[in-house]
């Protein structure tokens, strides 16, 4: 047993997700199975191994700082669940 219901609650809070008690139980079960499986990595000695982000050398992609056209405001707001004038509308966040 690597994780319990408390861990699931904690991780769910971090991930901004909520679950029913039934879902949480299933999660604890699935989570432990998957984590036990990935524990297999502990068999590998990586003491002197560097991490890899990419398989081949990658360099920062730099470009001139030029003004270019970007998406129109109407297009940006096209999919907004709630909007007013040229803004996204959200619930009140400050008192």
């Amino acid at each position, binding site marked *: 047993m690597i994780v319990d219901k408390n861990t699931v609650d904690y991780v769910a809070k971090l991930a901004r*997700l909520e679950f029913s008690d039934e879902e949480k139980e299933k*999660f604890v079960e699935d989570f432990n199975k*998957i984590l036990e499986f*990935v524990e297999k990595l502990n068999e590998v000695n990586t003491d002197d191994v560097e991490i890899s982000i990419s398989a081949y050398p990658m360099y920062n992609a730099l470009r001139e700082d030029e003004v270019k056209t970007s998406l129109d405001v109407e297009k940006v707001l096209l*999919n907004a*669940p709630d909007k007013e004038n040229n803004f996204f509308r959200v*619930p009140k966040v400050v008192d």
Partner: protein
Amino acid sequence: MHFKSAHEVRDLLRKKEISSEELTKLCLERIEKVDAKVEAFLEVFEDALDTAKEIDKKILSGENLPDLAGIPMGIKDNICMEGKKVTCASKMLENFVSPYDATVVERLKKNGAVILGRLNMDEFAMGSSTENSAFKKTRNPYDLERVPGGSSGGSAAAVAAGEVYYSLGSDTGGSIRQPASLCGVVGFKPTYGRVSRYGLVAFASSLDQIGPFTRDVEDAALVLNAICGKDDKDSTSKDVAVEDFTTYLNKSLKGVKVGLPKEYFGEGIDDGVKKEIEKAIEVLKDLGAEVKQISLPMSQYALSVYYILASSEASSNLARFDGIRYGYRAKDFEDIIDLYVKSRSQGFGSEVKRRIMLGTYALSSGYYDAYYKKALKVKTLIINEFKKAFEDVNLIVSPTSPSVAFKFGEKSSDPLKMYLSDICTVPVNIAGLPAVSVPVGFSDNLPVGLQIIGNYFKEGEIISLAHGIEKALNLNLRPNV
């Protein structure tokens, strides 16, 4: 007509034996007839006929057109096309309309492609059976009781069932090659960085790569010609010369060194699959390839590395879905945090949530070193092992999938069982290598695919071997649907 290859159809279009409009109508009729059974499409674009008519005008005016001009195709529903919905088969994006074209779509349009619709997939490309779609169940054209594989199940099934001439999918851990194998079509995952990911909805950015589903290897070469190349909008796309991949067709395979990694033929591979792969290897030998056994022991850790890295990246990439700027927003909520929580919990399906949770856990304080960093270190060892193998051989072959198409529900209740479907394909994504799945036979009347893995940017060498074996086998790939 429905089962012709794209290059055959191109020749008919050029000889004016058929028009693009007629061809597009034939595909629409075919979709009307078989998609009620196969359910590959999430949406058919009726305005595709307008594109076809424009292409016909150009053909009639004698204009020299690209290979793919006027040929109907489909895109996986995680690739953005301006003015069209892109849903990732998720409730989260059910009504999302893309304000721009993905680079691959821009390139397809430049090549005159007739984009016929959006194809079903596992939600946010997470899955190996397309059962995780929030909208419909795509069926395998060879047996409607079985899955088409995933996550690009719709893209594979639509090509296999003769609904379109080719399609695009995306491959993060096998999501092109595995469904291609299960549906009896060619599925190509190019080298990481070959094809721009701009406009592909991100799942795991260090692993995702777009590639084609086609009816034969020559078509794969044509589609790669159209979509490969550096793009300033994707800083991970690589500035490597894009050759004409068709020059790699019809090559002698004499002296080509092919490695068989013994770990990919061991436990967990079905006997029927093994038998077909072994037959294919005999064919390669007959064609003059020098086949030898190699060992890639680090591959056994690839699936663990994959589920940590892919889930971690997914948890970060999918943080953008908060119900504010686009996507699903819950109806009732108490405050801003509750809006995030309810929108995400109601909008995402269970596998997506499972991976976000796993990734969030792997990246959380106190566990980051044990999981994420450890996985990146083992990734180094997997890469090094492949690099060393390619000092001795040109190509590596293995089964694509450990089994043929399985039944609905057979693996969906146990995530780990489902994850094992990707055991042969996942190491390739971790190393960022190119690979194809090419049909080589049938087991219990269901298609079996051979995976051919190449060195970085050696897509051409893969095409030569795949084309050689395809010609030698000359399989009948027409499901009765």
